[in-house]
């Protein structure tokens, strides 16, 4: 029996498979980003900086067709995400469709828009699992990070999820401004009867890169966090599973982002673009095919965007002669491009990367600089926002 983690965030736990080579793989999961609309405006949002408007969103029938095509190419799981996926009124219909054709369904939500009635509809439609983001255990800081007063509602939603009978994963993006609460986040996950806690790290491209100084943790914070997780994993074995990896800036080797480009995973944007990774639009030179124009099977096999970094032939040295090239598959392309301007660059996380300094430089300043105000995710960057956390008179530093 082999176990494969197929979460969209990077993970170091996927085991290498010696027999894969350049052969086309059967994908495991599709991330359906139903909308970019979201009441929250987290400054590390993984959505692209150029967000899609509601008018560009693909309709229910197109989503259903995409899901049916996904099953045909061997996809096993569908993640409904966003933005905030519950902002789509057809979510229960899409869950029902996905479930009826054999897909395992996962809802990735902020939890702030869900009623018990709607949750029951999702359950009856066949929903298998829910993942709720919690920004911090301290309500005030949680709401400051999210840019929205919704902390109590989130906790309430977690309770409803368990009451309805669905398994719960708590997703906690941990960084400089909340790592001191990691212990209480673990306690909270247990209290909420979650089965898993995903301690996620900020990846620096798009929105998060604009906020890098605000998020990069200190070495001391990180060492402390690792110790806390190790202790909790032993204590909570069989009660709470904790996903945790050392963030790239403090790692020596890259992670197998997405389990390798175009190997396990695809992402469909609100407008129907099919991407190898949810952040791939940050690689602004790539052209993406659209589910409205082409079948998913064609896109998986032939799309230039998928073939651009598939396998290992695109890799420069020292990757090309590295014995880990089929373990990390070149790491994270989006972060490498965002930080070096070179899309083929050896992931700066790697200690052998000629670009390692782009990580080490910001690290050398961590803890010395004043923590800047957040630059919040928003659809139109020129419009003033009414949410909390936006009222500062200081202009944000980038």
């Amino acid at each position, binding site marked *: *029996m082999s176990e*494969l983690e197929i979460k969209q965030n990077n993970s170091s736990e996927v085991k290498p498979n010696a027999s894969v080579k350049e052969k086309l793989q059967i994908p495991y999961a599709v991330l359906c980003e139903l909308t970019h609309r979201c009441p929250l405006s987290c400054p590390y949002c993984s959505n692209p900086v150029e967000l899609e408007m509601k008018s560009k969103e693909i309709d229910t029938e197109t989503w259903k067709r995409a899901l049916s095509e996904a099953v045909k190419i061997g996809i096993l799981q569908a993640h409904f995400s966003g933005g905030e996926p519950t902002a789509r009124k057809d979510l229960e219909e899409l869950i029902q469709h996905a479930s009826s054709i054999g897909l395992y369904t996962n809802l990735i939500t902020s939890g702030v828009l869900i009623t018990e009635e709607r949750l029951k509809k999702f359950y009856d439609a066949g929903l*298998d699992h829910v993942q709720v983001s919690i920004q911090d255990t301290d309500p005030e800081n949680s709401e400051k990070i999210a840019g929205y007063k919704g902390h109590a509602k989130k906790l309430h939603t977690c309770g409803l999820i368990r009451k309805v009978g669905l398994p719960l994963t708590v997703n906690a993006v941990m960084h400089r401004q909340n790592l001191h609460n990691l212990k209480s986040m673990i306690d909270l996950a247990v209290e909420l009867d979650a089965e898993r806690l995903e301690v996620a790290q900020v990846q620096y491209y798009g929105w998060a890169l604009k906020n890098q100084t605000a998020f990069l943790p200190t070495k001391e914070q990180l060492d402390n966090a690792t110790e806390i997780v190790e202790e909790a994993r032993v204590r909570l074995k069989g009660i709470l599973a904790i996903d945790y990896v050392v963030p790239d800036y403090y790692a020596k080797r890259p992670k197998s982002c997405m389990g390798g480009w175009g190997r396990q995973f695809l992402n469909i944007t609100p407008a129907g673009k099919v991407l190898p990774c949810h952040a791939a639009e940050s690689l602004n030179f790539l052209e993406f095919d659209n589910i409205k124009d082409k079948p998913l099977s064609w896109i998986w096999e032939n799309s230039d965007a998928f073939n651009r970094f598939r396998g290992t032939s695109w890799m420069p040295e020292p990757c090309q002669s590295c014995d880990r090239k089929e373990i990390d598959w070149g790491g994270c392309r989006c972060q490498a491009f965002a930080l070096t301007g070179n899309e083929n660059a050896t992931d700066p996380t790697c200690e052998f990367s000629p670009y390692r300094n782009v990580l080490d430089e910001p690290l050398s300043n961590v803890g010395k600089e004043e923590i800047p105000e957040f630059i919040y995710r928003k659809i139109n960057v020129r419009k003033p926002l009414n949410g909390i956390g936006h009222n500062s008179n200081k202009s944000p530093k980038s």
Partner: protein
Amino acid sequence: MTELLTLNEEHIPKLPRHAKLRFDEARKKWIINAPERVFELDEIASEIIQLVNGESSINVIIDALCDKFEGAPREVISKDTLSMLQSLADKGFVII
């Protein structure tokens, strides 16, 4: 709160709602879908898991496997079955 489960032959195992067993045509393998992970089952694990139905005890499952694989010692089958189911139970994907 979830309790830690240690399986013995008297237990009647089943999969929780959120662990879904099915045969995957694309991979020609039995798989279990679970939150953000997939278990691809090898031949032995597939034989065991197909007998997990929420009615048969592990004892009964082992007997059925002994009948099917004549000549294999019961203690070997018992050990394989318990360890395979326990590894799933540790993660909450087998319950009683």
